[in-house]
């Protein structure tokens, strides 16, 4: 019978990178021909008992379809606090897309952004305003006189650009079909 500690470590490593529940059968397959289901179960027991120690932040969970590692529920406060703080230094894909529209189509209105993205983007626009990456630059003289948005100086600093004229065209960055294969 193989080294139980090694098997436990291997199971933990696999579960830690899987990102989704892993079945016992998948573990058996990954661990090699001389490993049985009973070995895997014993190894998983070892993993579980190790995580019961107060110093461990993880736990082994048996869910539909197999096993997975998650953070301990009693630590969720810290994890949530970390993720909340981190979110402030990150841009979501929606925010990035909206920022791209403002950058390339400025000055642009919210209805125009909504039309291009196909979803209501008012919350995202608000976030970008709060982050000072875009600003209000007057109103468009059409029905409803919607606000016009432009990018800010902070936006240029973030991208390391001197002026908007330095913003590369999509062609320059090879982001269009026409440039493929060139």
């Amino acid at each position, binding site marked *: 019978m193989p080294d139980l500690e090694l098997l436990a470590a291997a199971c933990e490593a696999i579960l*830690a990178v899987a990102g989704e529940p892993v079945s016992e059968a998948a573990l058996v397959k990954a661990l090699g021909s001389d490993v049985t289901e009973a070995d895997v179960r014993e190894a998983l027991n070892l993993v579980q008992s190790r995580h019961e120690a107060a110093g461990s932040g993880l736990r082994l969970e048996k869910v539909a379809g197999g096993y*997975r590692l998650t953070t301990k529920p009693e630590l969720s406060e810290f994890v949530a606090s970390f993720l909340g703080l981190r*979110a402030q*230094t990150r*841009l979501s894909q929606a925010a*990035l897309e909206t920022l791209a529209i403002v*950058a390339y189509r400025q000055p642009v209105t919210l209805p125009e952004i909504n039309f*291009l993205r*196909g979803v209501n983007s008012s919350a995202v626009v608000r976030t970008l305003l709060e982050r000072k990456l875009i600003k209000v630059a007057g109103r468009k003289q059409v029905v409803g006189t919607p606000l016009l948005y432009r990018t800010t100086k902070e936006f240029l600093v973030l991208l390391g650009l001197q002026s908007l004229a330095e913003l590369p065209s999509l062609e320059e960055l090879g*982001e269009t079909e026409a440039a493929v294969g060139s």
Partner: protein
Amino acid sequence: MGAVALTEPQGPAVVLPVFQGPLDLLLYLVRENRVSIWDIPVATICDQYQAWLRAMEQLDLAVAGEYLVCAAWLLAIKSRMLLPRREKGEADPRAELVERLLAYERVKRQAAELAGLLALREGVWPVQVSLGEEKSQGDVALEDVDVAALARAMREVMEHFRREHPPGLVLPPMRHTVQEKMQELLAFLTEERSFPLLSHMLTRPDRLEAVTCFLAALELVWLRAARVHQRLPFAEIYLTPTGYSPVLEASTHA
């Protein structure tokens, strides 16, 4: 530099070094000849370089334009080497070649260094346990936002927009001339004694053709080649021949 095995259907496999570019090939030749990079025998290296280009062409390896530019450069250096140097202080014609080869050699060493670091990192995977349901996907750290990320996002917006708004089916409009329509109508009139003009117009695929058709009919009436009848307002308009057949100019429209 790596190697590629060319398996020919007949004959043994040929193993040929794969070069990253002309500088890579030149460095290889300098090493093969065991000569000092500070005193490159340009004539020899130049001949061997061209032999390699021919070999690569024969094997149908894509020889990029850079190789040919470099070949011309080597030839220029070679010819300058044949000229006597006028002054003592005149630069060696090979100076730039040496400089570029040394710089490239440095790049290769640095690349090897990075490869070594990467090899040490092989087999180490980052841990990412799930949080249960929610997973922050596609988030970018603010410090990683660059114009390339922005352009990528813009392309995604545009692709999504194109998917949601496929262009309508657009038929190129047919080109018709009054002249053509007159000939067409005359042909109908000689065949059918009474021609339903209104129905014909209403069933044309585009409005422009219908209008052209109407103008052609008016023209035929004016030339006295046809008559029009309508029994009631909005009823069918019939076109009938008068028996007179005007000489129409041959259509020049293709």
